[in-house]
């Protein structure tokens, strides 16, 4: 019987769904709390019960990323791989990889000081969207519509002075309907897709109350998603797409520890089952 372990730091609906499905499918299933797990440089795989494969599901990106590094050190198969988590967790790296692999993506500008960011804004023109390079649920994603707003947001960043705040990620504002598309890709397959319609503002995160509506998986959508998945290294991913009025589908984000509570309400396929089946296949490989 294959052994699957789900590494968590906070059990959300998604982790419960994954655990329940893995048990239902007859797999030896255990939950592992990353917060109380100790690893050291002398650790060996047999010191732990990480089973045949691990699904890394920490809500904290850095915790999950570093835990994944430990799992790979122990030669434990983990989904997603460290490289994939790193590629997806940093929006700048994601944007660079998407462009490098010819995946349609919004034009994005990178500056490495607040002076350079302001200079770029003046040169390119308003509006641009400022996004923290690490972060989720739409936090810190703000449209800079004029110099006054830009000055205020950049001043706040200077005051908070986090190490990643010095990296300025400014993205063109896409002309699109007030929605985006979230696609779940598992391995070489697109599992499900939904429209996330804004509940008022310009953000479309389900975490902020956006309404999930099932989206048809067209050939174009499938092709773009698979290209985006390959660009970041593949695995279990949430690909976020906007519908540009001129260019068609553009990928703006790829998520590593994808949340699917919203999509599972409307999905035709059983998302946790697809994820567990994929993980088990990786363990057998």
């Amino acid at each position: 019987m294959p052994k699957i372990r789900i590494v968590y730091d906070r059990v959300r609906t998604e982790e419960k769904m994954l655990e329940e499905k893995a048990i239902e499918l007859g797999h030896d299933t255990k939950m592992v709390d990353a917060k109380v797990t100790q690893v050291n440089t002398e650790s060996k795989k047999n010191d732990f019960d990480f089973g045949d494969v691990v699904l890394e599901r920490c809500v904290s990106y850095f915790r999950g990323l570093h835990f994944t590094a430990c799992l790979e050190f122990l030669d434990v198969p983990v989904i997603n791989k460290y490289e994939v988590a790193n590629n997806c967790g940093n929006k700048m790296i994601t944007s660079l990889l998407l462009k490098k692999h010819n995946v349609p993506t919004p034009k994005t500008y990178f500056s490495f000081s607040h002076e350079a960011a302001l200079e770029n804004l003046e040169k390119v023109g308003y509006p641009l969207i400022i996004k923290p390079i690490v972060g989720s649920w739409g936090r810190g994603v703000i449209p800079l519509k004029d110099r006054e707003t830009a000055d205020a947001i950049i001043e706040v960043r200077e005051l908070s002075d986090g190490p990643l705040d010095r990296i300025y990620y400014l993205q063109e504002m896409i002309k699109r309907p007030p929605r985006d598309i979230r696609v779940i890709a598992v391995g070489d397959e697109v599992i499900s897709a939904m429209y996330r319609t804004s509940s008022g503002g310009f953000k479309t995160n389900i975490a902020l109350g956006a309404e999930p509506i099932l989206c048809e998986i067209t050939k174009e959508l499938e092709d773009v998603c698979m290209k985006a998945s390959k660009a970041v290294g593949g695995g279990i991913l949430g690909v976020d797409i906007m519908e540009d009025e001129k260019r068609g589908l553009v990928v703006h984000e790829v998520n590593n520890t994808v949340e699917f509570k919203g999509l599972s309400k409307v999905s035709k396929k059983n998302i946790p089952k697809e994820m567990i089946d994929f993980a088990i296949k990786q363990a057998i490989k």
Partner: protein
Amino acid sequence: MNCPECDAMLKIPDDAGVGEIVSCPDCGADFEIASKNGTTCQLKHAEKVGEDWGE
């Protein structure tokens, strides 16, 4: 059981498991279920939402 913060009654669902978060309806404090033995739970203060939390 009672809220470790304000002593209000905390209702923990029977199917709640280790790692899940329960919130106190009175004071709003969040607790993580640290261990569970039958109907007895041990709670610890839940972590605050971090900048790197999410997908």
